[in-house]
């Protein structure tokens, strides 16, 4: 089989699997800090109980993120040698700074954050939480800077077919970087909010009415309700930025085949690239022109301006719609739940039942969004500089196919195990309620049965 398409699927599979976990850890670190600070301020041990429940999720997600991230650092070389050969002078320093400033910081203080509560002072433990959360965010900063540079490259010059850095400030803060970073950080916040709200709703359904459940549930629901309108606004701004810098991506997202005014907003369609038209189209007249140009007669770029140089339409079109649809559902669910929690101090059972699967809505929206923007960059690996087809290595297709198959099996099994543990941890917390021992928090004798020996 074709090594190019196999390598693309393999990298896509790896990075899709990988992003699930940073999407959790980036914001969960700050969420844990919030729990910790509430505990420090109120002395209410329910906050610490919430902390200990969720720090386990953090530990597991962090480990999954690390191992899948290591995989990618090798795959640049094994499958995509052309990437570093062409833009290594730019990508290299950005990756190096991620490792040096973020990875070590997270990894070193993670141990103290996880197991150090009774070994260091409370203040140092809080500081360790800050440093880990800061490390994950810093890591996101560098990798988003690199990804955004691949989308909208500036601040470099080509010499003998190799990119050389000219202006580092321009490279890091390239045109799409601030928008993408904000969009991704908010996406992480929403992923975690819905995860916490969903698993707390599961505890609620199992009859858990403990203080730690309520605290986690309220934190998740209210954070989601606050973040989602901000995210919708930030996403819109990001779209306008893409219109300015990558119009061919917008054309594919809207499945707009011809440049012109009065472009409708297509709600449903099966884009047909061969016939250059949409089948079964359902659209709002002038909608796209209005959203993108704020006027019904606004001109929206069409795919006809980019023959042979635009991304595949179908996945970009649908990726975008799945992301937006999930976002709207998030808005409805989080605001309803916030209303009931605020006004009625309870959660209707049907809403709780809906919130449980919505625990993974952040994952769905994040993946759909990344597919939109990454497939939307094709056929370029680095826009205007390096095509994906020119970066692939000379490795045999059979090798890639074999390793891809094993990776996929491994990822599916790990995902099942991961979700199983999340549910197990939630049900265990539901069973313990406010009664689980907290030897380090309460002034209780240490001989109480604590977590299993060797637990981490």
């Amino acid at each position, binding site marked *: 089989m074709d090594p190019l398409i196999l390598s693309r699927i393999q990298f896509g599979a790896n990075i899709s699997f990988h992003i699930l976990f940073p999407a959790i850890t980036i914001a969960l670190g700050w969420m844990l800090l919030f729990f910790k600070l509430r505990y420090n301020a109120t002395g209410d041990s329910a906050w610490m109980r919430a902390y200990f429940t969720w720090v386990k999720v953090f530990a597991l997600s962090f480990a999954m993120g690390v191992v899948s991230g290591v*995989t990618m*650092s090798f795959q*640049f070389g094994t499958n995509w040698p052309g990437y*570093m050969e062409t833009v290594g002078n730019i990508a290299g320093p950005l990756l190096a700074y991620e490792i040096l400033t973020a990875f070590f910081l997270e990894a070193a203080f993670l141990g103290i954050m*996880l197991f150090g509560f009774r070994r260091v002072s409370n203040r140092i433990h809080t500081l360790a939480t800050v440093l880990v959360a800061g490390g994950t965010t810093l890591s996101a900063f560098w990798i988003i800077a690199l990804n955004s540079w691949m989308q909208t490259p500036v601040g470099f010059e080509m010499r003998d077919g190799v990119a050389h850095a000219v202006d580092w400030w321009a490279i890091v803060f390239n045109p799409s970087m601030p928008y993408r970073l904000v969009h991704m950080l908010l996406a992480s916040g929403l992923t975690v909010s819905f995860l916490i709200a969903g698993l707390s709703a599961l505890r609620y359904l199992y009859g858990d009415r403990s203080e730690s459940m309520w605290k986690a549930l309220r934190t998740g629901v209210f954070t989601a309700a606050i973040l989602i309108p901000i995210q919708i606004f930030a996403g819109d701004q990001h779209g306008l930025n893409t219109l300015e810098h990558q119009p061919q991506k917008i054309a594919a997202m809207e499945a707009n085949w011809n440049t012109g005014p009065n472009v409708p907003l297509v709600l449903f369609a099966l884009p047909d690239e061969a016939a250059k038209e949409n089948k079964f189209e359902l659209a709002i007249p002038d909608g796209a022109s209005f959203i993108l140009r704020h006027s019904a007669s606004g001109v929206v770029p069409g795919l006809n301006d980019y023959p042979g140089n635009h991304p595949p339409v179908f996945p970009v079109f649908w990726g975008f719609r799945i992301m937006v649809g999930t976002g709207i559902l998030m808005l409805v669910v989080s605001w309803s739940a916030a209303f009931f929690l605020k006004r009625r101090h309870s959660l209707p059972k049907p809403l709780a039942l809906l919130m449980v699967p919505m625990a993974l809505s952040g994952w769905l929206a994040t993946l759909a969004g990344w597919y939109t923007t990454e497939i939307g960059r094709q056929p370029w690996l680095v826009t205007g500089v390096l095509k994906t087809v020119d970066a692939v290595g000379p490795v045999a297709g059979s090798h890639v196919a074999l390793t891809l198959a094993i990776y996929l099996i491994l990822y599916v099994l790990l995902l099942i195990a991961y979700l199983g*543990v999340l549910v197990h941890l939630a049900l265990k917390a539901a069973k313990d309620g406010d009664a689980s021992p907290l030897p*380090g928090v309460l002034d209780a004798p240490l001989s109480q049965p604590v977590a299993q020996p060797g637990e981490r």
Partner: protein
Amino acid sequence: MTFDWPTLLPLIFASLMGLAILIYVILDGFDLGIGILFAVAEDAEQDTMIAAIGPFWDANETWLVLAVGLLLVAFPLAHGLILGALYIPVFLLLVGLILRGVAFDFRAKVPAGRKHRWNRIFLLGSVIASLAQGYMLGVYVLGLDFGLAGMAFGALVALCLSAAYAAMGAAWVIYKTEGELQKKAVLWLRRALVLTALGMGAVSLATPFASPRIFDKWFVWPAMLYLSPLPILSAVLFGWLWWQTFHLPKADDRHALMPFLTLAAIFTLGFAGLAWSFYPFVVPDRLTIWQAASAPESLAIILAGTVVVLPIIIFYSFYAYRVFGGKATDLTYD
């Protein structure tokens, strides 16, 4: 050789990468070794052994990310060449590291009945990762030779490096535990030492005989004289450590850290020998560090960050080790 930045920077980065690999091999060596020793440890012992590495393994593995990262960013041509040639072993290493890393966490969080399964996965992952690293070392030493001889030699080194890691793991257990487990670890160390010594001997002999260029670097006067401390000192340290295994553990737990430090010293000596053999090549006999290096201005900006950040990293790493210093106790989140 002129000492301007385009000459110096690749040299500095080769040294940094070497340092990162060495630190990785020593630090993750004991993590992987403890995983290998799961094969011969009992349930309760396994929990203590995990507690001895739980707070550190993540940071330890980060040194591998740094090493591969430096190869990637400083020597992009070599990164593609080496990892492309080692496609399948690299894949196995990654699978091993994935299994090992997640098993760490899963084993403590799954319902009690499933813990055994993750213990076995932890063992399996550690063994696969160690074997893959050893195999890659063997094939690399012979100049990325994929003939039958190269693969056989790779298999031998795979076995020996795994034994070396097991020795490191045992030495770490001696340092971090007490009582019966500590005594057991002394026995594990003694057995693993045999294969470790065999492996180092094999690599030391194969390296010069596989390449006339390397042969000429070792067996000419007076280089032979300057280099003689490497093998002699290694042999002395091996002998001393072997002798120690008949006397450990000592009263008041004296010298509990010595086996680990001795092994780390042996690893460092072996590594120095390899570095001398292969310098100035990053891909044996094909690409020198200067041919494979990135543009000087890119290296300079990484170096600026490294000079500032690396001391800080080493400082807080020491702090983290100190927080969890002393004998390993049960690890709990609360």
